[in-house]
């Protein structure tokens, strides 16, 4: 009997709410569409400007390009080396994020689930890094990286103007957030499975990699997304650490450089083309992976 009542009352409630929320629905769509326009129009406008001529860019902002000037893109690609910068960004972010996740999850796991003297101090040391403004450390950091470059054998791979050096710095600066977040996540995981594995004679290391890490997957995915975004968009660190060698620059450096360059060379159409090139792949990658990204991101953040 109860089974019969509940669906009926649900149906009733739904009907009732439709009555109440009906007009809201139209307004809802208006509000959502307004924000969609606010988000999309500047981006589309940039794409349009990227195929405009210099004259058109200096003319009315809402005019459409008379002809598609794809040579703007060619110029941005060739002269501004956008392709090279993009590859560099991908390499640095791939290694940086991998290292961050590996070392970050190791530290977070130990700090979250093992009691030992100094645990709290190490945890706080990591977490306090969340609040450190990076601008404070820039100059000394430069010398640290320079000194690393003087270490025998490995030095040439991790000194200044090396992607290796930048990767290590990215890892170090991503650790506070990663440890903070993952430690909280590891704490919420049930201990029963791990206990069982220990009883079966598994080592600590094996339990971590084969039991706990897979269990923490939602958290791992979401922190990975954060780190990819954060490292991809990083501008300040490469500016200081990858200075002299243009061929090693990452994408944000390239874009900022073109923006500065536009001040001198007045090649505004190439600026827009380069902007579009920086925007487009991110949008495509994001759209392809959006459901995973959103799932991972939210699964973790809600813990």
């Amino acid at each position, binding site marked *: 009997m109860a089974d019969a009542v509940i669906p009926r009352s649900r149906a009733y409630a739904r009907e009732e709410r439709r009555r109440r929320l009906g007009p809201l629905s139209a307004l809802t769509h208006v*509000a*959502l569409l307004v924000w969609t326009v606010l988000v999309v129009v500047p981006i589309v406008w940039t794409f349009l400007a990227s195929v405009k001529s210099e004259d058109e860019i200096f003319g009315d902002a809402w005019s459409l390009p008379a002809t598609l000037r794809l040579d703007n893109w060619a110029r941005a690609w060739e002269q501004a080396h956008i392709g090279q910068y993009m590859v560099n960004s991908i390499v640095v972010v791939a290694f940086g994020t991998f290292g961050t996740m590996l070392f970050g999850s190791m*530290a977070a796991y130990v700090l979250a689930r093992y009691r030992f003297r100094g645990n709290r101090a190490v945890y706080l040391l990591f977490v306090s890094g969340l609040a450190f403004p*990076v*601008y404070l450390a820039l100059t000394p950091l430069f010398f640290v990286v320079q000194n690393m470059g003087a270490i025998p054998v490995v030095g040439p791979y991790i000194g200044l103007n090396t992607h290796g050096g930048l990767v290590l710095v990215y890892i170090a600066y991503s650790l506070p957030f990663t440890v903070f977040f993952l430690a909280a996540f590891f704490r919420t995981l049930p201990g029963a499975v791990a206990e069982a594995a220990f009883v079966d004679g598994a080592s600590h290391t094996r339990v971590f990699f084969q039991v706990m890490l897979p269990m923490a997957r939602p958290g791992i995915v979401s922190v990975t997304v954060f780190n990819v975004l954060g490292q991809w968009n990083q501008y300040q660190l490469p500016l200081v650490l990858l200075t002299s060698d243009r061929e090693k620059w990452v994408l944000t450096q390239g874009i900022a450089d073109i923006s500065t360059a536009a001040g001198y060379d007045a090649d505004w159409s190439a600026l827009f083309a380069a902007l579009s090139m920086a925007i487009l792949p991110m949008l495509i990658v994001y759209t392809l992976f959006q459901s995973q990204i959103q799932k991972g991101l939210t699964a973790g953040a*809600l813990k």
Partner: protein
Amino acid sequence: MNHGRTRFVAGFLAVPVALYLIYVIAPYAQAFSIALTDWRGVNASPRFVGLENFRRLWDDDVFWRAVGHNLVLLVLLPVLTIGIALFFAFLLNAGGRGGTEGVWGSRFYRVVFFFPQVLAVAVVAVLFQQVFRPDRSGMLNAPLIALGFEPIGFLSSTDVAFWSILAVLVWQAVGFYVVLFSAGIASIPRELFEAAAIDGAGGARLFLRVTLPLLWDTVQVGWVYLGIAALDVFAVVWVMTAEHGGPDHSTTVMAAEIYRTAFQYFKFGYASAMGVVLFFFTIGFAILALRLSRRERIEF
């Protein structure tokens, strides 16, 4: 279970802690000591000047304007971003048919709203510089001029520029929190909405009585992220505004002043002193946020 435990703990911590000490802690610690010198970046031996930099900082009007801007951002960036994001998250999830289903096309909106988040801040800053242009080639001013109004100096009027910065920051941040809050709302059991609806709750009351309280934890997480972001604002101000924080310091923030003082005036000692102040602001905010967020969790 204790077999090799110590070795395991030490082994797992060794690399991350070493990296962290070398690349993060050591530079910061050095920065603290540089703050007590008049180092100009190129000379070998900085002179120890004690607290002189801090005394001078106390009288530095521009720096305190920057602090003021950061504090305004600290309040308004989270309030606006979270407010708008909550509104859209609610509409997306509960605004549809029957109040419990997602609105038609909610997946599409969630994807599109997130777009700004995947763009590098440097890219966004360059983009909005063009949007805000003060002549008829500016996206926003073109229609104003066409209609015969005076163009608005979005980035050139000292009264407006700061709000333009805030708008860009909100523009970029909202999408992320819409997704975050959407997931939070989605994880609220349907029955709670239904029960409230049976009790006669309308859209607004549903939101205030059910959605918001159950989302409170997530909102606080967002608040902390946005608060720290507000204290760290740099690239948008630096790349987008005239005079890097202008016009006439009307948009400057602490990070911009630190960067300018260090890398344009080469007063690394003085810049480090500013960094120390920013450091304490951020730490202060973090502690405050942690204190305030020690509220009871609503379990379901």
